[in-house]
């Protein structure tokens, strides 16, 4: 695969404060097209605030934002929602309409599209999230997992290239968490750029090709997961553990001196490797 890194969104020295409380300090991040980025860090580290700045809901006190290499005027920040979709952590605080179809149409309606185009996008999002059967339902009669799917469809219908998920698996049961992970994989396959906040190191290790670690409003680390999860001081400062697969692999490579370039990211890869080599 040719790897021309196309810049999608960039922040330079982005800082943000709620009233007088500084929450983000001088954040420099460049997001490239097609990346899968996991954003980690303890509660209150500033992840959600960072996302709201990228999406144009909050306006940074200082710093610049570049979209596809072009520097944005400060006035244009609030237009970022057209390019950056944001799925909130809590589906209930995102859903506003009184039925699923109307709910999904809210974003596209605000994009100033024709009615036919809004309709097309709503239908496409309903299909993509497998919600056709629920399209006339009221949000108050949906389960937690269904609400989550609706809140994702909301954003898909806006057809933005960069999708941000704020702790998408929080408060979901394992079945629904699994479903959301499959959806995320599918979105990557379909060419979306993904930025996902999570506390689950195993998921981050499976999913991400890049890791951003926040701590107390600063960007503590930015790089490939296999490197960052090796940095003891980063893990300690951000209260992160090593992914289980990585721990097992390290234990194996230490003792059995299985020296390879390969390092498994998932349980499946690990077991496949083991069943091949260890007879």
């Amino acid at each position, binding site marked *: 695969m040719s790897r021309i890194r196309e810049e999608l969104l960039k922040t330079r020295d982005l800082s943000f404060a709620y009233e007088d409380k500084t929450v983000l300090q001088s954040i420099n991040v460049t997001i490239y097209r097609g990346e899968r980025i996991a954003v980690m860090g303890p509660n209150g580290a500033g992840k959600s605030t960072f996302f*709201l700045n990228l*999406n*144009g*809901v*909050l306006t940074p006190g200082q710093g610049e934002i570049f979209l596809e290499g072009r520097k944005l005027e400060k006035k244009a920040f*609030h237009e970022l*929602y*057209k390019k950056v979709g*944001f799925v*909130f952590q*809590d589906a*209930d*605080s*995102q*859903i*506003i*309409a*009184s*039925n699923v*179809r*109307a*709910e999904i*149409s*809210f*974003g*596209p*309606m*605000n*994009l100033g599209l024709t*009615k036919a185009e*809004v*309709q097309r996008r*709503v239908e496409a999002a309903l299909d993509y999230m497998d919600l056709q059967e629920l399209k*006339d*339902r*009221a*949000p*108050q*009669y949906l389960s937690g997992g269904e609400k989550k799917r609706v809140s994702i469809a*909301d*954003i898909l219908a*806006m057809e933005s290239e960069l999708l941000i998920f704020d702790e998408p698996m929080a408060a979901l049961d394992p079945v629904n968490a699994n479903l959301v992970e499959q959806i995320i994989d599918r979105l990557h396959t379909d060419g979306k750029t993904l930025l996902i906040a999570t506390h689950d190191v195993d998921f981050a290790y499976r999913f991400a090709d890049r890791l951003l670690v926040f701590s107390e409003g600063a960007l503590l680390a930015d790089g490939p997961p296999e490197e960052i999860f090796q940095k003891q001081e980063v893990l300690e400062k951000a209260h992160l553990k090593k992914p289980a697969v990585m721990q097992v692999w390290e234990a194996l490579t230490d003792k059995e001196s299985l020296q390879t370039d390969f390092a498994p990211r998932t349980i499946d890869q690990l077991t496949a490797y083991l069943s091949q080599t260890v007879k």
Partner: protein
Amino acid sequence: MKIDYYAYHSGMTKWNAGFKVLLAVGTLLMVIIFNRVRISLFAILVMSGLTLIAGRLPIRTYAHYLTIPFAFMLLSSVMIAVDFAGTPKGDFNFSLCFFYVCVTRQGIATAAQVLLKAFAGMSALYMMAFSTPMGEFICVLQNLHLPGLLVELMHLIYRYIFILLETAERMQTAAKVRLGYGSLRQGFRTFAGIAGNLFILSMQKAERYYDALAARGYDGKLEFLREQRPVSAGQLAGAAAYIAAIIILGRFTR
């Protein structure tokens, strides 16, 4: 709030909302204007029939929701029918120590008329309430050119009522498992605590809700795609026949 649930799961949910509102309000007006027992009866028959057959509302549920208003209506009709007097001046009189409870034929007729009229109105409003989700009802108001701000407020309030209810329920359960409703006094204290927490929580959440609206480009106008639900020819013919029947019943029969 249960009514809301039935409205979403009625066999008539997919009917045009404006049509249903018009039918209910029209029935109400005709019943009042004509003020005839046979028209009230006819309206009760048709409206209850719609709710139960077309709407597929279980008859027990319907009866359950009618009990309280019906009891009220019955009580007030009885008050219309009876009269208290010192002399037995009615057609039927019951002596009670110093005075008589008198009932006249005229009184009974008036009471029946009022009772049936109220019942007909109730059945028309129930037909609407049990088949029209609030969101669609609000859209009808929007079509009537109510101020946009009012309509949007109704939309948001409607949505957030359910979230608040859920939250309140969760808190209540949490209090219950910690025996927060042990005694009456404790119950009041717990309730006050929940009410206070709900208020604070709402204020905190309001900001998040606003952020979520802004994240999808909210710029002061709440707009959704609306389902186009044309009135079918059958429905239109049915409504026309219904109105014609009422007019004939009202004007050409003695």
